[in-house]
């Protein structure tokens, strides 16, 4: 009886410390250690947030220095120089205007528009898309030089690929007045717009000094006001019985 009471006594005396030890171990394992891991993860998150704040602040500061009207004008100019879509009618009427302004007779023309589709279904090809056209002309050499000069300094951008002369009538006065007729092969260009025109997380593209120089160069090009092709008047109904 004496032994059992001393055993109980020992249990009572050691039970409390063991219990406290157990509680400390359980709390450490279940609460403290996960919390420490969470704190370490949050520290990494804070570092990442600092980087993001830096990037966004820089982007905002850059955007605040830009002038929207100037950007609109530049974007417009560049879209005129290199349109987003193939518009062969616009190109044709522009070329007619250039021919008329240069006193060159435009005979026949042959267009190869290629793939003409809406932007959403258009394939994204690398680089500008080309549209070729063959035009027959008749003019003096002097006017031909004027025409070529205009073609190379006009918006939208055109490129003369080849000139083929059918005949040259040699004028008695000078070579510059000799009448030439032949075929001109021209190339016009287009480039679809990029799919994404802005993303908050993407950095802002920069316009370098050479880019600015190109924009200034394009401002010196002439903008062609296309010729409107007058629709033929159609007579409908009966003839006017009172013509006078």
């Amino acid at each position, binding site marked *: 009886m004496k032994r059992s009471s001393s055993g109980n006594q020992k249990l009572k005396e050691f039970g409390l410390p063991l219990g406290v030890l157990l509680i400390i171990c359980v709390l450490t394992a279940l609460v403290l250690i996960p919390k420490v891991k969470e704190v370490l993860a949050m520290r990494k998150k804070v570092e990442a947030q600092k980087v993001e704040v830096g990037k966004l602040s820089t982007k905002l500061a850059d955007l605040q220095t830009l002038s929207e009207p100037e950007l609109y004008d530049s974007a417009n100019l560049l879209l005129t120089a290199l349109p987003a879509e193939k518009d062969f009618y616009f190109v044709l009427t522009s070329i007619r205007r250039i021919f008329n302004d240069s006193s060159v007779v435009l005979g026949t023309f042959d267009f190869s528009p290629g793939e003409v589709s809406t932007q959403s279904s258009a394939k994204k090809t690398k680089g500008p898309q080309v549209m070729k056209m063959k035009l027959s002309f008749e003019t003096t050499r002097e006017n031909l030089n004027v025409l070529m000069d205009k073609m190379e300094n006009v918006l939208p951008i055109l490129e003369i690929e080849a000139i083929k002369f059918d005949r040259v009538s040699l004028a008695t006065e000078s070579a510059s007045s000799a009448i030439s007729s032949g075929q001109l092969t021209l190339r016009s260009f287009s*480039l679809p717009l990029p799919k994404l025109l802005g993303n908050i997380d993407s950095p802002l593209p920069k316009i370098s000094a050479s880019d600015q120089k190109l924009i200034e160069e394009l401002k010196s090009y002439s903008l062609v006001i296309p010729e409107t092709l007058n629709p033929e008047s159609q007579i409908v109904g009966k003839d006017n019985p009172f013509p006078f």
Partner: protein
Amino acid sequence: MPKVGINLITQEGREHLQLIRVKLKIKRYLTVLGGIFVVGSTITIALFLLISRTVKANEQQISSLKSQINTFQKSESYLITINDRIKGIDSVLKNRKLVGETMDLLSNLYVPGFELINLEFTSGGSIKMIGRCEDSQSLTNFNARLEEVRSQKLFSQIYYPQVTRSLEGKYNLSLEFKEK
């Protein structure tokens, strides 16, 4: 005479004493452990609260910056368009052949009796010319002019592959020039 140790404490007493010593040790270790646990927990909780506040503040700042950037959406889209167009235009203008200048250079070859038939600008950067001379005098003059153009180094390369004579007595020429 050797000393004889006399222990007046009974066996029971010794056991009791041992027990007390163990109890004290355990108490001491537990106190230290408990102290470390409390301090560690306090620091952890304090850090947790502080970093949570920082994370929330950063999230608010990021959200505010993003909404401010959104107000400049148009400017950003114009800028991206400009950047995209410039790349395309640059590639077009770099590869574009300026015919006017070339025609001016080639006009140095025009002599009386010479007729330009065909002028083609290839993608390789060379110019193919087909012409015709009315007679031998015109051909001689043309060749002399060609020699002058060659000596002036207006072109990096001149290739003269063919001269043929037709039944009418005219001379058909084909030349290839490479621009500088």
